[in-house]
């Protein structure tokens, strides 16, 4: 097939050439756009820089010990965390298990609560009521964690002892419930944003067919908002996972693997907080706490990547 050549030939003059040139002239708006893009690029990249810097800091603090003296198999699978006795034992499994238990309980508590609240606020609450609810939820998110710790110590503890008739009130259940309550407002706020971002035309189209409110929410709104909801849970997990002081107060901080929600437990974060102050700078004990920090860092990283993968999978199917 022969086709006529495009008529633009170099050297053409006249109004048309001027016109074509204006498409290549970079005006002020173009340069401003260029500059703005460069600026936000730097902003975005700085995140990577900070992460890398923190990683390097944590890594180098524990590097000498991690390479030369730490037994990784004992660290990951050893069941005794006894850094101050002779000989010291650095088995982090109780801390890993404690963190996992408490995080799971926290999610079981917060996810239903938060999603319920988010759906109510986004889909049902109207006008003033909605405004007030949102204010309260944000207030809830702003309560300092030490206050939650005190609630764990003095409110949750007797309740658990009484209701479940157990000896120990500071345990996985206590810490999990406290963390769950702490994470719930954050999950609610983000989940509510995700629900509100679903265009009203979708709701109208479905409701016009006679779908009930619940059917609309379940079949149209939630699937559309799924990536946002996953992100909400992810941030909630991050909150529960990284929380330190409240969990230190409510968990009982017992350095052993918990076997039920009524056992006391210790988390990675609480252990670092509790022991870093008394470990001599540069000692093995000091360094192993940084290795713990590195472990925390890596787990968070894996959780984030997994969630990201889930979110992207959802988009592909959508």
């Amino acid at each position: 097939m022969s086709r006529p050549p495009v008529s633009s030939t170099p050297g053409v003059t006249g109004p048309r050439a001027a016109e074509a040139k204006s498409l290549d002239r970079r005006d002020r708006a173009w340069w401003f756009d260029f500059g703005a893009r460069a600026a936000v690029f730097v902003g975005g990249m700085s995140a990577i820089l900070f992460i890398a810097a923190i990683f390097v800091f944590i890594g180098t603090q524990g590097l000498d010990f991690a390479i030369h003296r730490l037994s990784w198999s004992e660290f990951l699978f050893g069941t005794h965390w006894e850094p101050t006795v002779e000989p010291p034992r650095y088995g982090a499994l109780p801390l890993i298990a404690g963190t996992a238990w408490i995080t799971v309980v926290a999610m079981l508590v917060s996810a239903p609560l938060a999603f319920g609240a988010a759906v109510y606020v986004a889909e049902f609450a109207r006008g003033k009521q909605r405004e007030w609810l949102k204010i309260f939820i944000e207030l809830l998110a702003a309560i300092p964690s030490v206050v939650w710790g005190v609630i764990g110590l003095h409110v949750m503890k007797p309740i658990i002892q009484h209701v479940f008739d157990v000896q120990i009130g500071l345990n996985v259940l206590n810490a999990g419930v406290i963390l769950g309550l702490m994470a719930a407002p954050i999950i609610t706020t983000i989940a509510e944003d995700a629900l509100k971002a679903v265009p009203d035309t979708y709701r109208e189209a479905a409701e016009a067919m006679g779908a009930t409110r619940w059917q609309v929410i379940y079949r149209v709104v939630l699937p559309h908002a799924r990536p946002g909801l996953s992100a909400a849970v992810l941030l909630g997990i991050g909150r529960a996972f990284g929380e330190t002081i409240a969990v230190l107060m409510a968990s009982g901080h017992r350095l052993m693997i918990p076997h039920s929600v009524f056992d006391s437990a210790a988390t990675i974060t609480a252990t670092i907080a509790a022991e870093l102050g008394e470990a001599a700078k540069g000692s093995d004990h000091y360094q192993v706490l940084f290795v713990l920090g590195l472990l925390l860092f890596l787990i968070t990283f894996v959780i984030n990547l997994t969630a990201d993968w889930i979110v992207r999978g959802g988009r592909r199917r959508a």
Partner: protein
Amino acid sequence: MVTDPVIPPLLEVRDLSIHYGDKAALSGVSFDIRQHEIFGIIGPANAGKTSFLRAINRMDDFVPGMRVGGQICFAGRDVATVRNLYALRRRIGVVFPLPVGLPLSIYDNVALSPRLRGVRRRAELDQIVERCLTRAALWDEVKDRLTSLGSLLSGGQQQRLTIARALSQEPDLLLLDEFSIAVDPVTTMRIEEVLKELRNELTIVLVTNLVQQARRLADRTAFFLGGRCVELDATEALFSNATQQQTIDYLGGRFG
């Protein structure tokens, strides 16, 4: 219609193909669009008409997975390689089938584009807003409520607001994709009259599902089907003696 060979075409399309992922939406399309003509495009759903318009002002940049092959030249310049994409888009006005009243006042909707290109004087803006709204046959209905939100107008009004906004760019090329889809017939007729007049100032590509609208307005009309340009001719020639059987069937209402 006789074309003056001295005036080069505004748009030159060469072997254009458009893919979404692996799926072809358009292939092997080549033709010129002349200055100051109304170029009609008709064809059933899925013909690739909207995809074609998207490619012209590089809207494919927004759509992940959309790939454009071949060449489109605007005023002699390959749109794929223009160094100032925004300058290109400012010269091309687009109206898509679903009206988009931006969440600004009616006035600001229409004044947005002039402001973007640096018009500051209130009197000048007022003049542009009035002229564009009048041309879009909306002025009389909104002149007393220019400060209310554009997104709260009725569907048909928002559509005309969208048209007014496209005109406020003072484009060289206006791409209309089923612009009358939400507009009542009387208003449609008024806008059609304006489009005929606008031919003196600019070039229009008119995608329409109403074949009679193409017949009323277009100087030349192309018939798209399944991602190909089946036939292209002066509008009257196409309507009265199309050469391709598919065109005859479509115009006769036998499919699509």
